[in-house]
């Protein structure tokens, strides 16, 4: 069976490339949507109107000259505010980067420019991508467009909300432990985390370097595949970038799942909200109906993922965030001597969650504790990789929920970090393994909140992953429209 899903962004680019729509008009429509509702949602830290208008005009000029501006011609794209943009503020939603303008573009930003995309602004996020609700942002929380009393998820909550609210058809986020997939699920959009090493991290402000990966948000699976194709591929500026040809996921996205084996991951269904579990089982049925063999699989090692992650990620973060010392860039709180200046700057510049994780990570790496904590977590990481490998000996993809619950209320979990951390329990093992995974909207809860199901695949199996995701998308019950509640 073949499916041909919706592809609003790709269609829009086709219209601009064909000359039937002007990029400038497309941009103004989206800026109008932002003006109408971002005051309420706060998806953006910064809307780059002037730069976006210049990019749109350049795209229209190329079309007028008979040139092809590229596969994303005139498509507005929102960028998570941890992606460096030359000359434009890049803050990680942190006070410590206030006023800093990077002197260079992230590789993904360069690739978007080359593909003809129009970048509309920098989206809100949990500070330094540490969080699951976008509430740890120094600029205040982003609200879920489906219910403004609720969180959009995080840490890429601004990007997810921007796509859900129609501010941009596409956005980029980063996923360290679920920071693309979890907010995608909570906001009812597609969000995908690529295989570690397929998308360059050059210009992505690091949270946890061995886990971070940039990925797409879109309103359809095909659009996500298109954006992944544009940003992926080898980059010599990132030593962990895999030297292999640029992916071509879009071209296979409609090829269906006939003959594939899908494993329903038992551990991910355990203890999740019953409505979320039910939707996951419906998605499994849809894959079976489309010709896949569906079986239940168990990867017990994934249950260790959360604990290992909260040692490895903070450990790397404690080192990555050392450079915010007030010496070269960003905030500086002056003091009598350098050490006092460092301390005062970091005390004033970092929020509570960032400080908590720096402390955790510093402790995990400290002499006398390193073997019990950090090194033990690395051993668990290996176990998780082996657990997934065993499952992939019989399965092509795995299926589970993206999140244990639908969007929670703003303020509900901020006082209880452990409960907050648990909302990434189904996404974290993928990062530890370095594998790709995607969250696809699959209907709504009885309360009208979006539910996402998650597909997982082995390293570099993005094409398989997108094919399965398109089948799930085609079978998905309609997700409630944005703006239904407030």
């Amino acid at each position, binding site marked *: 069976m073949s499916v041909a899903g919706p592809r609003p962004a790709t269609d829009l680019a086709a219209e601009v490339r064909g000359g039937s729509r002007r990029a400038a008009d497309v941009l103004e429509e989206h800026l109008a949507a932002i003006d109408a509702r971002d005051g309420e949602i706060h998806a953006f830290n910064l809307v780059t109107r002037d730069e976006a208008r210049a990019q749109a005009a350049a795209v229209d000029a190329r079309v007028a000259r008979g040139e092809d501006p590229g596969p994303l011609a005139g498509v507005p794209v929102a960028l998570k505010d941890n992606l460096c943009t030359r000359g434009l503020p890049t803050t990680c939603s942190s006070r410590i980067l206030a006023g800093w303008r990077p002197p260079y573009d992230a590789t993904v930003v360069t690739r978007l420019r080359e593909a003809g995309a129009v970048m509309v602004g920098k989206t809100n996020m949990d500070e330094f991508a540490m969080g699951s609700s976008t509430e740890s942002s120094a600029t205040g929380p982003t609200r879920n467009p489906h219910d403004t009393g609720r969180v959009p998820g995080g840490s890429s909550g601004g990007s997810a909300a921007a796509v859900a609210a129609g501010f941009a058809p596409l956005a980029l986020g980063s996923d360290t432990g679920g920071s693309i997939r979890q907010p995608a699920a909570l906001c009812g959009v597609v969000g995908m985390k690529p295989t570690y090493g397929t998308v360059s991290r050059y210009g992505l402000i690091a949270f946890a370097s061995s886990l971070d990966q940039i990925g797409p948000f879109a309103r359809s699976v095909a659009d996500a595949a298109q954006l992944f194709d544009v940003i992926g591929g080898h980059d010599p500026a990132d030593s962990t970038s895999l030297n292999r040809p640029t992916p071509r996921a879009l071209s296979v996205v409609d090829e269906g799942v006939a003959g594939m084996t899908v494993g329903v991951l038992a551990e991910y269904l355990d203890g999740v909200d019953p409505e979320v579990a039910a939707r996951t089982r419906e998605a499994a049925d849809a894959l079976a109906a489309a010709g896949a063999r569906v079986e239940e699989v168990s990867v017990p090692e994934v249950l260790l993922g959360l604990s290992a992650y909260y040692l490895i990620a903070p450990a790397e973060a404690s080192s990555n965030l050392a*450079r915010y010392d007030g010496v070269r860039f960003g905030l500086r709180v002056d003091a009598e001597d350098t050490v006092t200046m460092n301390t005062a700057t970091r005390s004033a510049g970092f929020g509570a969650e960032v400080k908590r994780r720096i402390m955790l990570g510093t402790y995990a790496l400290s002499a006398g504790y390193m073997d019990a904590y950090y090194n033990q977590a690395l051993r668990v990481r290996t176990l998780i990789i082996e657990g997934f490998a065993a499952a992939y000996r019989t399965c092509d993809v795995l299926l589970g929920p993206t999140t244990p619950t639908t969007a929670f209320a703003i303020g509900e979990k901020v006082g209880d970090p452990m409960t907050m951390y648990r909302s990434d329990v189904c996404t974290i093992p993928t990062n530890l393994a370095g594998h790709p995974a995607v969250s696809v909207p699959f209907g709504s809860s009885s309360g009208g909140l979006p539910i996402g199901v998650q597909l997982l695949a082995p390293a570099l199996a993005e094409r398989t992953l997108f094919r399965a995701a398109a089948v799930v998308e085609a079978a998905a019950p309609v997700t409630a429209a944005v703006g239904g509640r407030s």
Partner: protein
Amino acid sequence: MTDGWVMVIGLEVHCELRTDTKLFCGCPNMFGDEPNTNVCPVCLGLPGSLPVLNQRAVELAMAIGTALHCDIRPSTFHRKNYFYPDQAKDYQISQYDEPLNADGWLELPDGFRVGIERAHMEEDTGKTTHAGTSGRIHGADYSLVDYNRSGVPLVEIVSRADMRTSEQARAYATELRSILVATGASDGKMEEGSMRVDANVSVRRSADDPFGTRCEIKNLNSVRSLGRAIDYEAERQIALLEAGEVVVQQTRHWDEDAGRTQALRSKEEAYDYRYFLEPDLVPLVPDAEWIHAVADTLGLMPAERRARLVGLLEGGEVTDVASQVATVVDLGLDDLVVEAAARGVPVPLALKRTANEAANDAEAARAVEVGAYVALLTMEANGSLSATQAKVVLGDLLAAGGGDPAAIAKAKGFEAMSDDSLVATVAEAVAAHPDEWARFCEGEDKLSQVFIGQVMKATRGQANGKAVMAELQRLRREG
């Protein structure tokens, strides 16, 4: 060294590699440029930047490992975490438990072998200048940081604690410096900081006792300082122990002017560097083919080059030969001697001129036209020029980088004297000093200098000293 005590010394040498660009970015690796001009997001540690390993730096590091007889192994990079303003990322990327080069040795000129524990790669820091009256961090009005050096490639060579005297430590530093220069990895300039030596020193009552508590001495800017600092530090530790006190493990700073070491920080205050595997880099695993290709590019090492010169002498008489050979090799001038010997110049003469006059301006000597240099030595060897004249012409050759020594000699009026005129001039000198001549004839050989001096004066230096001596001896013999 106080009687009854034995020193134990190990050295850690940081060597800046002579690459065109830095270790993890494309910025120029240049000393002495305008501050903060050779910088980019990577070596400034800007958010989002990532390191990419410099292949040439790896090759130079492998060349050092090969020259030090190390195993070249699969290796990894770690982060060494500590806050300091000239440390751009507030961590240093360095090799930790899996260094590129391990388990080698270095042989001193006297044949003593010092073990090499490891020679690993790491990045250099920037440079902090404390402005204000004190010039030190305490009491500075403000501090300036220059990141031009940030990310410059280093190899740290860690010896085993095999040395027992400051002389051995100085010989090790000198020999290592020559090896680093010979590999092309370094210019070996201690005064510019491209080679930096730290010394670990401890003392014990006898060679059978376990090692004592060691102190690490920093800020050693010359081989001479290294020797002085080690001797001072050993005596300081001995004095403590003889007074019934203990040596505290600490890092100490050598004060060249005061001639003593001062405590910087003790082990209790030592940093916890929280080393962990650098996630932004992948393992460095050189294959056998690459290792062999690097080894094939290596020329002769200093020990081999010294042996080559000694071989040329074939047991001929030369005073002070070891020191001349060492000087010539250390300054990289041995090819001049080899070439001169190949063209028939007596080796002792070539060695003497090269180790003395040429060595005085080694930089010019390394650049001089070899043909011109050999031609000059040939003229001296066959008596066309006296030693004095040859030295003058050599000065001109070095200053000009080459030229025709015969033409220079002619322009200066350095014509070799005919035998007849030499005989006449010597006879005049003898006649003018009858008393000295009588004493010379009775065996006071040193009075020959009087006559040689007279002849030189009369000929304004054009006479060949050896020819004058020969004539004097002929006259005395023939009565």
